């Protein structure tokens, strides 16, 4: 079975975000980029599935030259091969999904893992859109995944619980934290990754329907009150919550 995993290259969650000179993108100075954290769960699940069911895993990433760093990490974890769909320009989510769908189709991948969202734009949509475009079955925000033959049982997180979802291949699964513990790349894996080739091709063109007008920092919160340094401050805190905030 051919398994694909879609990965994105994003600022580390510890990064401080500053607005770039164009007012539409972030200032990359001092920002470390990493594999999107949710994509690590997707990579791990793809590898585990391959180990159990056989087949191969291909990583697909859309973006610029810098994405190769994230692709190498996926290869080092054990992914067999990779494709970089090159595009240095802004794309909205649907236009990303269209390019990914085309490549997944060309690769004939039956099972595709995504992270449930990229921690940059936080849309949480590309997996579902890609499934819709390919007419694949889809379960999003998955914390438990089981494949038996052609049949899938997955649990997805919802407010106050989980939905147990039954479906079948071909399918797209978007990974949530809790699905697994991503493995570390071994030294052997890192060495092997250097020899694996990354196929590069231009991402399929698609029109954007969502245009970026600008990026801004949220209004700074006004410095709050320090009410005290021990339990004697509690009555005043409760008074403020009751009379000023009116929350209790």
């Amino acid at each position, binding site marked *: 079975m051919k398994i694909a995993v879609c990965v994105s290259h994003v*600022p580390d*969650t510890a990064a401080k*975000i500053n607005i770039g000179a164009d007012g539409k993108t*972030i200032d990359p100075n001092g920002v470390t980029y990493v594999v999107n954290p949710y994509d690590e769960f997707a990579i791990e699940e793809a590898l585990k599935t391959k180990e159990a069911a056989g087949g191969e895993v291909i990583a697909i990433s859309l973006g610029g030259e810098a994405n190769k760093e994230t692709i190498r990490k996926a290869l080092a974890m054990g992914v067999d091969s990779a494709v970089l769909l090159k595009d240095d320009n802004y794309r909205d*989510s*649907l236009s990303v*999904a269209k390019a990914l769908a085309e490549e997944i189709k060309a690769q004939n991948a039956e099972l595709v893992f995504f992270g449930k969202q990229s*921690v*940059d734009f*936080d*849309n949480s*949509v590309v997996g*579902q*859109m*890609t*499934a*819709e*475009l390919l007419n694949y079955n*889809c379960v*999003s*925000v998955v914390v438990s995944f089981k494949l038996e033959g052609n049949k899938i049982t997955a*649990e997805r*997180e*919802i*407010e*106050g*619980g989980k*939905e*147990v*979802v*039954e*479906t*079948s291949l071909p399918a797209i699964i978007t990974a949530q*934290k809790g699905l697994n513990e991503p493995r570390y790349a071994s030294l052997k894996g890192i060495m092997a990754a250097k020899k694996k080739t990354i196929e590069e091709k231009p991402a399929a063109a698609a029109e954007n*329907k*969502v*245009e*970026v*007008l*600008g*990026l801004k*920092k*949220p209004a700074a*919160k006004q410095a*709050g*009150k*320090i009410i*005290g*340094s*021990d339990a004697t*401050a*509690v*009555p005043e*805190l*409760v008074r*403020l*919550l009751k009379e000023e*905030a009116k*929350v*209790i």
Partner: protein
Amino acid sequence: MGNKILVFIEQRDGHIKKSSFEAAKTASEMAAKTGAEVEALLFGSSVEGMEKLGGYGVKKVFFYKNAELDLYSTKTYTELTSKQITDSGAGIVLFANTAMGKDLAPRVAARTDSALGMDVVAYVYDGNDLSVTRPVFAGKALMDLKLTGAVKILTLRPNVFAAGAASADNAEVAVIETASVDSSVKVAEVKKSDEKLDVAEADIIVSGGRGVKGPEHFHLVEELAALLGAATGASRAVVDAGWRPHGEQVGQTGKTVSPTLYIALGISGAIQHLAGMRSSKYIVAINKDKDAPIFQVADYGITGDLFEVVPALIEEIKKVKAH
């Protein structure tokens, strides 16, 4: 064409969710710009108070009725919502940014080839152009986007747009008996968690961090939460340490929340945590370290030992509640 605004109404266990009333109200505010009509759609076999959506400005409710639609069906919901958009000629479609809305809205956008704005916290609409503001990088920045094309789809962050008080108007309810349900992706069961409230939906959240010193001390967090009718949250550090389930994690790789009140106990305020909760209306921080970054976003802070302050706080709230 385009003179309708459609709002997707989410029901769980036959009850309409609060965030759907917020979406209905927002739809009617948008509709007021052009005199458009607001229509709603929902799925299930028996839903309480559908006509009451009229109180939030909905004229007509399309109720797709089938017991197999009581639980979420990604394929049939997508199929029928997309068809409703095309048939009604709606130009704007609103969802709440819930687990269901987040799964469904992108599928509908892909099916109808529409512009999509997720997790919207503000919008500007003049009756023609529609632009939205949404948090990115878990709230470290805000992005303004313009949506183009014939159909514009938004999901609204819960607790941001007020539903307000309902008027006495009733909506017309059209029941559409729905025969065929695609069960190729089927929710076989919903497992409810023991936690009564989810951080993503709660109006009050009490969160604990490393300062709580161990899973055995989280009863303090839970007791305060229970007293306030709040959900329990946690920092990434304590989730990664296995003290708390990941469903409770607030922050960039957890949930981004905007409750009315957020109480942070023993949380220092790592950048990824602050990003996920800074838009809370009121923030209370209790932490021994007076230099902790959490105090930069807190409205009210106590720089003391939570093991002394929290029991006193529980007693004081009990006293106030008894009055």
